[in-house]
Each structure stands twice: as structure tokens, then as C-alpha cells.
């Protein structure tokens, strides 16, 4: 990666402790250093409690880094007092609990919140809301006047995501976006993520499950007890089975199949880590 590629996120030696200085102090991050380049999709993986949520919230500017560490997001040092307000429109964070993010009584108003807050003209706000709802698969007419608290869990997640999209952020942070979703919703959400990347956004996804990530993420950063344990490329994740297992993570099922076959001498070179890509690679070996 040439130095000329801009860093969307640059973190050096970040340690974070909740309620530092009190008897209830809980360390969350320990000496984390990482870099996310503009336009990448990076996955933060790790078991529950590894520090993924804390790291995302630091990148969003919600948690201020202590003096020892340096966190730069989109070129702005988050320790600066004005960092949070300067980053509001440029960074979007999707919380694990969708209900926590819903502010307004009606769906349309809620999705419009951040652009409105930023002072954008009414027509533009409306257009953004419409596009955002379309992107997540919510019918504009049907949902814009629905009450936010009457929605189902999956619908709430979509509204929260639309609210994030409406601000057209350069950096998108997703905290366990597919947790608890049924397969159809999960597929459509991943589609939204792909489209976002195609539009040039940088995306960081935190996930405790490895499924869906290999075909999506360029890189996987593995967190363990608040430390960066390893970084693994997304395209051939299956080569890193032992390393992932040492961190308490399991390879996704298809990757473990590729890994087993490689262990038995079948060196597949799958073009993609989905069933068709792997089947194709296997057939190529068979007919070679």
C-alpha cells in the first residue's frame, strides 16, 4: 500500500479504559495501532468483549483517546475539542441496538435528522431521505409516516441504516450489522454495504461472526482482549485457519472446506469464496 493512499483512520498506540481512576475501571483497549485506507472495507473481528464496539466509538469521536494515543479520522485528530462536530456529517456509526439511535416520532423525520441538523435545504433533505430509504429497501410512501417505535426489529435496523446513509458519510462504521437478522435481511444489508463501497465510502464492520466477511472485506483485523492480534487479507482467509482458531474464532464454513481440501493436497484457487466460486475451482482441479 503506497503512502500516497489516504488513510481514513489512523490509530497509534491507543489504550482506553472505561471509568479510569475509579474502583470500577474496566480496560477495553490496550495499545491498539491500525490503519484503514480510504475506500477499503475492513472487518474488525473478535469474540464478544474484545473491544470492537469501543474501537468503533473511538473512531466516531464519541470516546476521546487518552493523551498516550493518537487517533486520526479523515485527517482530524479526535482529541481536538471540535473534532466531534466536524466529523458528524462525514462519519456514520450504526449502533448494535437500533432503538438507541431512533430520535424522532416518525420514520421520515428520523431519517432526515442528521442532514436537517446540518442545515441542508429542505428539498435536498427530502431527496436524500428518499434515496436512503430506497437503498435499504423501505418503501418511501409506506414508511415515511410510520411511528418509529411501532416498527419490528429488522425494520428499525433499516431505518437506522437509512438515517446513516442520508448524511452521505465518507466513513461508515457498522457495529454487528447482521446480528439477529434473518437470512433475507442479512443478504440485502450486505448488498447495501457493497453498494456503499462502490460509491467510494470507507467501511469498517465489527462482527463476532466470520460468516459473510470473506467475500466482503478487503482485510480482517482480529481483536483479542483489547489488542490487535493479527491482520488477515479477506480474499484468502482460509489460509489463516490456525491463526484464527488460536484467537477463538472459527473459519466460515466454506473457507474451512477449502482449508481441509488444501490440507489434503487440493490447492484450490477459488476466484471467490462463495459456493459457485469454490465449486468452479473444484471442477477445474477435477478436469485438470
Amino acid at each position, binding site marked *: 500500500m503506497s503512502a500516497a493512499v489516504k488513510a481514513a483512520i489512523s490509530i497509534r498506540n491507543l489504550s482506553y479504559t472505561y471509568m479510569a481512576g475509579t474502583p470500577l475501571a474496566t480496560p477495553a483497549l490496550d495499545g491498539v495501532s491500525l490503519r484503514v485506507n480510504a475506500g477499503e472495507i475492513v472487518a474488525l473481528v473478535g*469474540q*464478544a*468483549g474484545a473491544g470492537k464496539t469501543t474501537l468503533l466509538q473511538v473512531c466516531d469521536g464519541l470516546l476521546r483517546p487518552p493523551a498516550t494515543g493518537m487517533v486520526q479520522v479523515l485527517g482530524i485528530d479526535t482529541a481536538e475539542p471540535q473534532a466531534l462536530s466536524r466529523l458528524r456529517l462525514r462519519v456514520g456509526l450504526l449502533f448494535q441496538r437500533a432503538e438507541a439511535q431512533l430520535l424522532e416520532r416518525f420514520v421520515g423525520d428520523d431519517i432526515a435528522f442528521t442532514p436537517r441538523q446540518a442545515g441542508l435545504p429542505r428539498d435536498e433533505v427530502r431527496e436524500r431521505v428518499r434515496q436512503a430509504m430506497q437503498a435499504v429497501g423501505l418503501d418511501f410512501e409506506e414508511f415515511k409516516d410510520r411511528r418509529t417505535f411501532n416498527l*419490528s426489529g*429488522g425494520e428499525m435496523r433499516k431505518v437506522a441504516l437509512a438515517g446513516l446513509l442520508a448524511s452521505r458519510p465518507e466513513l461508515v462504521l457498522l457495529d454487528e450489522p447482521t*446480528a*439477529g*437478522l*434473518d*437470512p*433475507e*435481511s442479512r443478504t440485502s444489508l450486505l448488498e447495501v454495504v457493497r453498494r456503499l463501497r462502490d460509491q467510494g465510502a470507507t467501511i469498517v464492520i465489527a462482527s*463476532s*461472526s*466470520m*460468516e459473510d466477511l470473506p467475500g466482503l472485506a478487503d482485510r480482517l483485523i482480529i481483536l483479542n482482549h483489547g489488542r490487535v492480534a493479527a491482520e488477515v487479507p479477506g480474499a484468502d482467509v482460509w489460509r489463516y485457519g490456525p491463526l484464527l482458531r488460536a484467537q*477463538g*474464532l*472459527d473459519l*466460515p*464454513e*466454506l473457507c*474451512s*472446506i477449502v482449508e*481441509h*481440501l488444501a490440507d*489434503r*493436497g*487440493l490447492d484450490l484457487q477459488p476466484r471467490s469464496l462463495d*459456493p*459457485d466460486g*469454490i*465449486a*468452479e475451482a*473444484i*471442477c477445474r*482441479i*477435477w*478436469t*485438470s
Partner: protein
Amino acid sequence: MTAPFIAVRHASYTYPGGRLALHDITLDLGPGEFVALVGRNGCGKSTFCRLLNGLLLPNPGVVTVAGIDTRSPGSELMVRSAVAMVFQVPDNQIVATVVEQDVAFGPENLGLPQEQLWRRVRDALELVGLWEQRERPPHLLSEGEKQRVAIAGALAMQPRCLVLDEATSMLDPAARKRVLEVAHLVNSQGTTVVWATHDMAEARQAQRIIALDHGRLAYDGSPAALFTDTALMARLGLLPPPAAQLAAALAARRPSFPRGLLYPEQVVQAVLEAPVASPGPLAS
């Protein structure tokens, strides 16, 4: 032929607002079975689960648990101690501020004498592996541990059937595995397990899958037969587990490839054993 433990006959259910959630379901659940319940969101899985322990009463239709009609007044105690249920959100099942006191909640409501209460609490917590944590407050536990506390609370009722309504959907993979292990352990001791889930990798571990589609019974049979029926899976809005998807992709390209494979190990084995078109650099 053993008598069914739970018999569901032409059960339908409409919510008070008018939404028809279940339509004319008829099936039997036998002792010791491990049954997976699948279907897209809103298909009626949760409603069906609640018919099994009398939280909801069928109208029309009948549900009998060990011969007792769930609609008969005063049957709640018997039915709900025979069929125990675990729900999706761990926190919303835990009542007490100390783990062991929460596990005792159900048996306390049955009016059991103190000695029995302690014995049941101990047995249940040991089964789920949380006996060492019995004096901890629930808010300091992880989601997975909380859910196991909820399961212990259900097991303390000594039920003959354990119903888990998407009990793992809010858990991380490691916690899911542990909960699934507990369910299999309980099942191996003779308890019927009904496992409602979105995750086909979990569902394939059952001997029997029941699939619901818009409130109707769409499938009742083996996992392998369901996953190979692509048309039905599409209608149900489901995808087979990844290993099965790969097997299907291979079978589409190579008609001689075995069908109905569910697990990664099976697929790996079949790939290695498959006859090749021409000799190639294959080491085994």
C-alpha cells in the same frame, strides 16, 4: 408406537388485532425428539412455540400436552412445568438479582419444599456449567451466560420438553455453540427439544425439521430432503447451510456428485473420493 408427547390438531391462531398467525397445523411431537423449527420472519414460529406451553391457546384447534388439553382451566401448572421455554432476549427472562435465585423462580412458583428447590437449582446450574457463578448478579454476565441462566431456570422445572424460541439469535458464535451443546445434552437425557432458528447450520443438527410458511405447515421431514428441494427453500425464503450450498453447486456441475450432503466433512470427503475426468496431480 409411542404416544405423542405433544399433539397439535388443526391448530390455528389469530392475534387480537386480526392478524392470522397460524392456520390449520397438525403434527405430533414425540418424547426425546430434537426438532428444528424454521421459516422466515413472521411465518409463525414464535406463535407456534407459544401454543406448545399454553401461553397462547389455539382457536380453533386443540393442543394436548401429555394428554392434557392446554385450553382446560387450571392446566397451566402441569403444562408449563412439562414444557419449558427459553426466549430470544436473555435479559428479559431474568427476574432476580442473583443467579441462583433466578433459577429457583420457577420451582418456587410450584411450591416445592426448600430442599428440593436447592437440589433442582444445583442440578440445573451444573448442567449448563454455571454452578460456580451462582452468586453473581446477572448484569455482570455476558449475553451467552445470561442465556444459559435462562435455560437453567427452564430446566429447573424438570420439563419433558424444552422449547427454544430463537434463543441464539442475539449471541456470538462461541456462546451459540455452548447453548447448542446444552440443548443436545438435555436431549440426550430424553427431553424433547424444539429449536426455532434462522440458522440452517444449527437446524441441520436436528433429526427433523418443521418449516412454516405464512402460518401454514410447509414441510415436516428430514433436513437433507428439505435442503435439496431448492424450489421449496426459495418459497420459504431460506438458504441451505453453506456446505449444502456447495454440494448443490457441485452436483449441478457433476451429476455423479452425491446429493443431500449437509456437513463440511461430508463435502470434503465426497470431493476427495470423486472420480476425476482425467488423472491429475491429486495427492491423498
